[in-house]
């Protein structure tokens, strides 16, 4: 099937979606095993010309990335009779379908309609939908956590100290707080903590500002 390629400025995943959409509408293969349903992925077969050739490589890369781990599909004893290439294609297509449904927060009726158009029988549609329903919340949480954000504060620890002397100055007699903010990076996971010292007045200022933020949060939820 021929697809109008999106303009060169479109993002690769967007392109991939547009290419895969007709795949969801194609006739499904007659399956030999009742547990598997097939879609055919055309990405590898469409000829990309000129500037779009680069997109072709990216798209195929993305499509094969959907096969997150080949081993768990290929090692499954129930599936060993099927040609591995077709298995990979099926997995990629199924994963794309699920991710799109999750992203758009599609409800069961929309998914069923889509699958019906692909000429899947009722029993399979029901099975797919039940499984989807079971894992829907986990999927949404996972999708929601993908993305960039500034360093995220996870915890705080503090220490109250009373300085008596240091090598430059004796008899300093100054209480101060040492505050450590444990932070996490969305990409790499951990990050060196943010440490700083402050006097009691400064800490009071900090807590006051945090309380203002919390109050405005409360007001926003009541709107």
């Amino acid at each position, binding site marked *: 099937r021929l697809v109008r390629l999106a303009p060169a400025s479109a993002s690769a995943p967007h392109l991939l979606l547009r290419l895969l959409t007709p795949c969801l509408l194609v006739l499904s293969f007659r399956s030999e095993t009742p547990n598997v349903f097939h879609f055919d992925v055309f990405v590898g077969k469409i000829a990309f010309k000129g500037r779009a050739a680069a997109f072709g490589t990216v798209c195929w890369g993305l499509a094969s990335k959907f096969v997150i781990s080949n081993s768990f599909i290929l090692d499954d004893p129930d599936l060993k009779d099927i040609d591995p290439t077709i298995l990979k294609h099926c997995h990629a297509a199924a994963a794309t379908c699920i991710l799109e449904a999750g992203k758009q927060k599609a409800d069961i009726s929309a998914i069923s309609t889509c699958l019906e158009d692909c000429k899947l029988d009722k029993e399979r549609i029901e099975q797919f939908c039940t499984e989807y329903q079971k894992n829907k919340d986990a999927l949404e949480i996972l999708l929601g956590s993908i993305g960039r954000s500034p360093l995220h504060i996870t915890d705080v620890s503090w220490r109250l100290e009373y300085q008596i002397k240091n090598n430059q100055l004796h008899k300093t007699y100054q*209480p101060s707080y040492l505050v450590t903010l444990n932070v996490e990076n969305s990409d790499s996971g951990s990050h060196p903590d943010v440490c700083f010292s402050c006097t009691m007045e400064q800490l009071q200022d900090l807590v006051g500002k945090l309380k203002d933020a919390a109050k405005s949060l409360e007001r926003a939820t009541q709107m």
Partner: protein
Amino acid sequence: VYLLTESSKLMISDIDFQDSIHVLGFSDELNKSLLQLYLDNRKEIRSILGELAPRLPSYHSLEWRLDVQLASRSLRQQIKPAVTMKLHLNQNEDQTAQVLQTDPATLLHLIQQLEQALGEMKMNHCRRIVRNIEITLVLSY
């Protein structure tokens, strides 16, 4: 200079200072003017020496902003509130600003923990120690 910095560092009393310089064998008038010099500049010298001590970046101020994430590339139709903050710190006369983010639950936890920290200063344990140290300070004069 060394005399003044060492004396200011140790925060010695007038009598101790006088006793110390007496061994140098200067005239009484010189001793008196040295003492006066010491007492006049002690505070300033101490504050300058205080800057030399090792320390962590110190708090300067905090700016905050309330954000709600409505959608992202991987998930549409979200409602995810977050508080974005800019923490200004001073490190040896350089000001650094760091952008941080937190969710509402962690924000409330932070407030609770830091309020507990503030409360510690007012607790008896802390008060007793501070008082004891201050008494020692007074007695040492």
